[in-house]
């Protein structure tokens, strides 16, 4: 089982109803990943771990990604009649993408020496439907990393044995790794500010110092 298409077919055959998508990657690495629907994610992950030809027994990395709402622009070639002549005109098509949060798992097989296989799980939105199934029961090593994603991104992992904040304190309400996080403003004393810090420090300058 070598290509991602084969892995996708294998998982879809083993888990009826599972919907997997291959997410392309146009960066130089070209590392594609599998997107799985939340309802069947746990069953698909079990297959990835237990299938004798895959045996992805090692979860090397779990991380979160925040995708805020965005307007995507795409150039589309459209045939149009301009002054009686049919011409191909480029038009900019704008589509709105709803925001969501993503958990990304990197799996390797220590037994068969292959990998990584990248699995992505997506939440419905970024506000109230942020639940994903936890894969900690399958890979114990994911426990702290899922807690970290819960802490910094705010994804709630159902089925996690001990879901608490791990880096910030329990009373903390924000999710610092989200793109719209606003950090506390403690830039009162900046002797050598530059760039972003300069902008933040300017609001603290007193009138007589502003020369």
């Amino acid at each position, binding site marked *: 089982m070598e290509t991602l298409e084969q892995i996708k077919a294998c998982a879809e055959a083993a888990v009826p109803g599972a919907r997997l998508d291959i997410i392309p990657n146009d960066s130089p690495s070209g590392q594609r990943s599998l997107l799985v629907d939340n309802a069947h994610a746990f069953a698909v992950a079990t297959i990835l771990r237990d299938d004798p030809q895959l045996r992805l027994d090692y979860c090397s990395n779990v991380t979160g990604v925040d995708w805020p709402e965005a307007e995507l622009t795409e150039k589309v070639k459209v045939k149009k009649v301009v002054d009686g002549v049919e011409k191909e005109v480029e038009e900019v098509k704008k589509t709105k993408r709803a925001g969501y949060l993503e958990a990304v798992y990197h799996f390797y097989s220590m037994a068969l020496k292959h990998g990584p296989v990248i699995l992505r799980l997506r939440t419905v939105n970024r506000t109230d439907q942020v639940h994903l199934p936890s894969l900690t029961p399958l890979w114990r090593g994911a426990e702290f990393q899922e807690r970290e994603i819960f802490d910094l991104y705010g994804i709630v992992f159902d089925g996690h044995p001990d879901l608490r904040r791990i*880096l*910030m*304190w*329990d*009373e*903390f*309400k*924000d999710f*610092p790794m989200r793109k719209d*996080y606003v*950090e*506390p403003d*403690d830039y*009162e*004393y*900046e*002797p050598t500010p530059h760039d*972003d*810090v300069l902008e933040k420090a300017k609001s*603290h300058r*007193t009138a007589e*110092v*502003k*020369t």
Partner: protein
Amino acid sequence: MDEGLRSELQKQGIFVVTLEQLYNWGRKNSVWPLSFGLACCAIEMIAASMARWDLARFGAEVFRPSPRQADLMIVAGTVTKKMAPQVVRLYNQMPEPKYVIAMGACAISGGPFKQGYNVLKGIDRYIPVDVHIPGCPPRPEALIHAFMTLQKKIDEQKLTGPDRARHCDPNEPSEFPVPQFGEHDLVPPSNPSVWKPAVVARG
């Protein structure tokens, strides 16, 4: 007393000192630091206390594991906002007279992590610091220099009068409020009675 006369008496084996000098001499040569480190600066602090740099030469070899027995807190390393209340609590638990050395870029200002949402931008926002050492991390020599600076400071402390040492003034606080974990930041973000942002003059 006249310096020359004192020197002459010393040659004869007679030592004339004030109680203040004797008291400060004793204190400055037996400063017991709290064995407490937060990050990589602690490794340099440990190195300074071991055979090669040998902090014992300055009477500070006894690193105490309990704040009740320590005189000096060396804040060695990054103070995260989650750790800051514990640092202040440890300081409060130390008996007077007590001193603080803020060791390294992080402890004095937040250092390379200054822009992080989780790092306290200097421990002097909550407790009074006697000596600041820059460096990332400072070498053991720098810590020894800070230590000698502190000894000099102790030696010059007055026990009576209007400019007496902090621990001799009943109106000066010996404990400082421990910050609380808030929903977005520590509450309060700094102690205004201890720390005020320095005015930076710009041309």
